[in-house]
């Protein structure tokens, strides 16, 4: 075998690998989409086909006219937006203090927050439920508050390292001009942190959109407050006795597309946020 054929074989092998990876990553999503476009009759027909015979939007129509599903979409949006806004607000205060100020107890504070990122949600579930009962909180605010268990530590951690990276000279210049710590925060540093805010905000939003354990537990009685993951997990058809997988797949596609768009638009930011802290240098 000469060098040229070897080279060609290598290229072919490489492309096969790339295609296999691509199909592996995308296939379940493709399958959900194709299944959502099939009629009920075709869905239960065996063997399953790779492509719908008569594509129909019937499943999408059914899902989009379901009050339960629309309500869940609204609930999820409300919860995720609120969690993101609160985490960014509270988190940037903490990040500023931890990243740019000198005070006693800074290192322990950082460690407490780092430890929180490893906190198993299940460990606090029963206690959190008790807190919510005492505060007499409905499910939606309960979710907003409790989701900060996983969004806030991460937000604080990333923003702290971001603030630390900003040059001190900026702050000093602002202080020489007579700005207070808070003024230099709001007018000088905060605008500079916009990229980090976008990254952490996106990740907080996606995590909140994804959350299932708390949502399932808190809405066990309050059915009208269920979010998308719970609604889809507990989805039952209006008519069919069998599990309506066509409609479930349609719902799955509908709730995934906005996230995929978001992810594609902010690809680099998200990768940056996901890998923050894991790689030095």
């Amino acid at each position: 075998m000469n060098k040229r054929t070897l080279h060609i074989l290598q290229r072919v092998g490489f492309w096969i690998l790339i295609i296999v990876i691509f199909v592996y990553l995308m296939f379940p999503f493709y399958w959900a989409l194709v299944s959502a476009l099939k009629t009920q009759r075709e869905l239960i027909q065996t063997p399953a086909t790779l492509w719908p015979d008569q594509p129909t939007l019937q499943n999408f129509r059914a899902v989009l006219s379901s009050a339960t599903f629309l309500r869940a979409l609204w609930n999820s949006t409300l919860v995720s937006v609120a969690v993101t806004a609160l985490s960014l607000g509270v988190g940037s205060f903490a990040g500023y203090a931890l990243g740019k100020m000198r005070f006693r107890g800074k290192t322990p504070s950082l460690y407490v927050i780092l430890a929180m990122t490893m906190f198993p949600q299940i460990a606090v579930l029963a206690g959190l439920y008790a807190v919510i009962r005492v505060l007499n909180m409905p499910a939606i605010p309960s979710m907003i508050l409790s989701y900060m268990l996983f969004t806030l530590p991460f937000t604080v951690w990333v923003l702290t390292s971001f603030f630390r990276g900003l040059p001190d000279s900026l702050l000093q210049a602002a202080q020489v001009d007579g700005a207070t710590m808070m003024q230099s925060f709001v007018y000088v540093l905060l605008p500079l942190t916009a990229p980090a805010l976008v990254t952490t905000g996106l990740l907080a939003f996606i995590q909140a959109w994804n959350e299932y354990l708390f949502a399932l537990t808190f809405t066990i009685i309050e059915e009208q407050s269920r979010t998308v993951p719970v609604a889809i997990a507990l989805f039952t058809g209006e008519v069919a006795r069998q599990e309506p997988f066509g409609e479930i797949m349609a719902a799955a596609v509908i709730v995934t597309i906005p996230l995929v768009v978001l992810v594609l638009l902010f690809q680099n930011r998200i990768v940056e946020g996901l890998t923050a802290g894991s790689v030095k240098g």
Partner: protein
Amino acid sequence: MADPSQDGAKKVRSGGPSELAKAEERTALWLLIPTFVIILIIAFYPLGQVFVESFRQREFASGNPGTWVGFQNYQQLLAVTMRQLPVELGDDGQPVVEDGEVQYESWVRVLPREPNRYRAVWEFGLFGNRYVVGAITPEFIRAVWDTIVFSVVAVFFETVLGMIIALALTAKFFGRGAMRAAMLVPWAVITAVSARIWEWMLQPTRAGLFNTVGSALGLNDGRTNFFGEAALQLPSMIVMDVWKTTPFMALLLLAGLSTIPKELYEAARVDGANPFRQFFSITLPLLVPTLAVALIFRTLDSLRVFDIFQVVLGRSRYSMASYAQDMLISVRDVGMSSAASVVIFILIFGFAVTYIRILGVETE
């Protein structure tokens, strides 16, 4: 938040450097208060509450204050015993043999019944004898074991696949950006939703993808019940988890790979090292810190697995977390659920600490 800043402002203008430092300290504390109040309400207080409840017996969501029971919940959860199963003797006093195999007595006759009834977790044979492991709550013991097996196997495959994907993506090729975007798709799908997608693909008839493909290739009869057969439940969960989380692993490793200087590879090539040699003597050693962090993240995450187990298997097979949640919501036993949560918490924290010690990862 307006007050503390104005307060700080006055001090800054009127005082010397030490006043300035004090003002800074005060501002910092004010800035941290919201974070710590929230952490207190949603993490530390509930954790304390769970700890306390684990020593009590109480019905969930009832006004009943409950009673102290000491370590009884833990004993119920963790008590394990092992007994040898005697050979089953027939009416003639000879061992019963069916299909050439010696039959053993059922565990029901061997395991203790008073004061607590033990049920079988596993049976196994060793040196010609047969043993049974019994527990008061076999569901929990099995959940712990299953979760650990699930985590080890899933993280192993995620790491290997993630590494392959990351290495493939370091090459420059047309469509690399599209590939990187495709990697984020599984990650962006809601976990509970991805569980339903896989549930649909793994249907027990040929309406499901895997049974269709399996029967077309002659691998099975097209009626494999992936979630019903005990031996296939964990592998199915692992397949779902690997698909969902491999991209995350690949992204972390890709970021790690990008920090390795290109000159090293050039030097190695000049020295005549083949790609495998390059991988094991340059890539892998330099990737250890990234790999360590990625392994910790992923293992901690998979030990907490809840969504896919709860959505697909429900009460037929538990992960640690889905057991504790089910104990709370369906069985309404706050004490047992809390004790299970404490055990999970200790396991995960113990694991994190040893992992970090062994790998010597720096936190900053």
